[in-house]
């Protein structure tokens, strides 16, 4: 026996992991900019859709906004800027005809010119696809008919010439231009390419995946990675300094930060995700690393929803979709009690890294930073008052029967476990009631909420799509959405609120805002939601990355980002 041989074997085996480790290349530099302008970014989930006509997930928008162009876009300060259009539209005196003057120099990345007919094709196609944001086209006469298969073209769209697009609306819609600035279905696509490659297949190959934005896709391995490069001679001008954007897909949140710390990522946080709260805390408490952490405004509210059609918190039992304005409202005092029993400051402290990653929601359902926000401390039921809450509870439930067996349904995640665990603890401490938490996965929560089958409390959350209060009401709070399977999860249906919102929707925002505020107050007064926290976006950005950020709704465009010497 020769132990020395075995020893050598063991030593070799011991080095196996070391042999596999990567070597880090240092970048050479030119001037202040790094020579290698490759931005590496991680994202947890793959895009749900690559076709602008099919967008239905928040993960899609930050990618597609760099590849496709709409008539308008939001700048970093949320101002609406012309993009495919030359200026804001001419609006007829009755507010029903919008004339868009288009840029004549606009081209797709393959060189095909963009004309008014391309816009009509793209919008008609988007209506046909009838995906989640088809509603952005709904104001146009005939768009919903196309969506519902009753027509093949949008009768309200016309193109008097190659550079003019006219949209006739069925009713005045003061929010129309704001909605068009949202980077979704209304972005223009190249008919020639789609006709040739196929309506679904054109997105599967980088060579046929053509847009008109400053970047184009150069490679994609589904659920693994995506690569992008700037479009040469882009019609819109400079594409910035980045020469390559590489996105790793499916990287765990914690691992993202570890790789960031080894220089593998320029930034963590964009592409509709956040930094793990433990890492936020770590960076927050580290005097050196703190400068890499940015807490950016978020436009998401998270709260508790009540079932307004059935169960202890409903005004009365009604069929979903029917008015819930029953007098007396049998559930109102109970909803007030629940809301006032929760100390939002404590909740934010416990669940959001000492209120760093979120803020107490004290100004109603429309979150801070969005037009229509009521203002700090304007929600009277968000003021923590345990004594009053207990009195209200006893007033609502003198027989102590309604308070039994209440559950909170939410989709399990690290942050949600903290939020609703704390809510549960506060309801026990402040009201003396045992509320059970019932975590599930997201599809289960979605189905139960939409079907109005949850009789207790459930997690509600909404990230605003664009900076206009119409986004809240028309999607979440009107009777048309209150039926089974629709987006008004509470089933709250108040015809007076509908009238108010319809009136506000018809006006331009500056005139409509008082009515939206009034509608917002109705939601607060009726405690439709227990608004708990307003979210933020957290970014970790290397010192050598500049121009990265988020305006609350969307990431800054890649063409604004540059990599400095490091």
């Amino acid at each position, binding site marked *: 026996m020769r132990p020395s041989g075995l020893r050598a074997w063991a030593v070799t085996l011991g080095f196996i992991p070391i042999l596999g*480790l990567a070597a880090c290349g240092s970048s050479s530099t030119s001037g202040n900019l790094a020579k290698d302008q490759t931005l590496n970014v991680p994202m947890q989930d793959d895009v749900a859709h690559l076709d602008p006509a099919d967008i239905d997930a928040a993960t899609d928008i930050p990618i597609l906004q760099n590849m496709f162009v709409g008539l308008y876009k939001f700048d970093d300060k949320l101002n609406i800027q012309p993009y495919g259009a030359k200026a804001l539209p001419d609006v007829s005196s009755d507010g029903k005809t919008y004339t868009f003057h288009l840029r004549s120099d606009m081209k797709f990345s393959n060189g095909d010119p963009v004309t008014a007919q391309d816009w009509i094709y793209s919008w008609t196609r988007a209506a046909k696809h009838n995906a989640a944001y088809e509603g952005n086209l709904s104001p146009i006469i005939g768009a919903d008919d196309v969506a519902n298969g009753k027509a093949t073209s949008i009768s309200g769209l016309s193109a008097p010439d190659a550079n003019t697009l006219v949209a006739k609306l069925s009713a005045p819609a003061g929010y129309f231009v704001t909605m068009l600035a949202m980077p979704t279905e209304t972005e223009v696509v190249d008919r020639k390419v789609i006709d040739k490659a196929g309506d679904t297949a054109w997105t599967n190959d980088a060579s046929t995946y053509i847009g008109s934005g400053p970047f184009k896709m150069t490679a994609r391995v589904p659920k693994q990675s995506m690569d992008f490069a700037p479009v040469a001679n882009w019609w819109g001008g400079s594409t910035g300094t980045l020469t390559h954007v590489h996105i790793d897909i499916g990287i765990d949140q914690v691992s993202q930060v570890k790789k960031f710390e080894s220089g593998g990522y320029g930034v963590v946080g964009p592409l509709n995700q956040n930094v793990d709260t433990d890492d936020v805390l770590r960076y927050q408490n580290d005097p050196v690393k703190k400068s890499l952490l940015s807490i950016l405004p978020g436009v998401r509210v998270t709260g508790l929803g009540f079932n307004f059609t059935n169960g202890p918190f409903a005004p009365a039992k009604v069929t979903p979709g029917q008015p819930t304005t029953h007098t007396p409202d049998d559930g109102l005092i109970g909803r007030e009690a629940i809301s006032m029993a929760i100390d939002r400051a404590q909740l934010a402290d416990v669940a959001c890294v000492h209120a760093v990653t979120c803020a107490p929601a004290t100004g109603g359902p429309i979150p801070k930073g969005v037009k229509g926000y009521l203002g700090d401390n304007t929600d009277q039921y968000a003021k923590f008052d345990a004594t009053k809450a207990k009195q209200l509870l006893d007033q609502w439930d003198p027989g102590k029967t309604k308070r039994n067996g209440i559950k909170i349904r939410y989709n399990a995640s690290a942050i949600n476990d903290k939020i609703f665990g704390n809510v549960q603890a506060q309801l026990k401490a402040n009201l003396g009631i045992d509320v059970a938490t019932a975590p599930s996965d997201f*599809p289960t929560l979605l189905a139960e909420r939409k079907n109005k089958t949850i009789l207790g409390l459930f997690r509600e959350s909404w990230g605003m799509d664009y900076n206009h209060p119409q986004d809240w009401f028309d999607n979440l709070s009107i009777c048309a959405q209150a039926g089974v399977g629709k987006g008004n999860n509470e089933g709250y249906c108040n015809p007076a609120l509908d009238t108010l919102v319809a009136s506000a929707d018809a006006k331009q925002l500056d005139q409509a805002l008082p009515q939206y505020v009034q509608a917002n107050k109705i939601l607060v007064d009726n405690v439709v939601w227990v608004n708990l926290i307003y979210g933020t976006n957290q970014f970790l950005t290397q010192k050598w990355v500049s121009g990265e950020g988020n305006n609350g709704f969307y990431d800054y465009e890649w063409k604004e980002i540059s990599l400095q010497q490091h």
Partner: protein
Amino acid sequence: MRGTLVYTGQRLVLIAFTALAVSSIVFIGIHLQPGSSLLTDRPSNPVRLQQLLHQFNLDLPWPQQYWIWLTHAIRGDMGVSLSSNRGESLTPVLLREAGVSMTLGFFAILFTIFVGIGLGTLAAIRQNTWVDYVASTAAVITYSIPPFVWAFLLIIVTVTYLYTLTGGAIYEDIGWGKPEQIPVPALALGLPYAAIVARLTRASMLEVIRQDYVRTAWAKGLTGRVVVVRHALRNALIPVVTILGPLVTAIITGSVVIEFLFGIPGLGKEFVNSILSRDYNITVAVFTAYAVIVGFANLAVDLSYPLLDPRIRY
């Protein structure tokens, strides 16, 4: 030889039946779950929903849906994705992911076998010395710590600490696609199982090296390497090989967490994501693929017995 072929044929039929049973059970199970990949937190459009249900055959009765899936699967068509880039063909994606998982699993098993058997042998031939104590203690500690904890520890050490320590010269580059990205996740996956193999090999070797034929081998003046490797280890490996079947299964299913943490685009990550997103086609395909992979792994282990012990015949 003929017996081996018959045995292999029988096992292949069994694998096919297992795949059929797994796919049907999983198909029913996933369809029983509430929610759907077609639902989002956006307001639902009932017309659109109906269109999508029809497009993806989800409006058909379950037996019909399953039959369509099965007949397509037999032809190698796993259907289309219902969630991520809806409508995209799954077959190339799943094949690539299976390849990734099998690559990771292969290296993890390789590590498990070589390190486990090596350490076990070393501990046995140096019984009751410091080598044995260290190896045995390390083995107990190693298999007491689950793979995901090892993964976290390895990420912290090889990504963060090593990067800091070497000024960025050497570190683990989390992700997949480069050969140097394989060893650390394979290590995280295989380490606890290597410890099990080490313990088993040690016990088995201790029994074998006391056998008469090993004493005879020493008496013949054979070198240590020949005695240990050719005479003792070969016989000691039979019980080790016996547990390799379940071990391969454990490694394959254990890759779920490792793939998540290391950002490896394999079947394991798909396994979890598809259930959470109710992507029925992927869930059924991935479960079935796992059943087939495990079936083949067990078959390979069983077929290796005769190589170690000539008394075993099929």
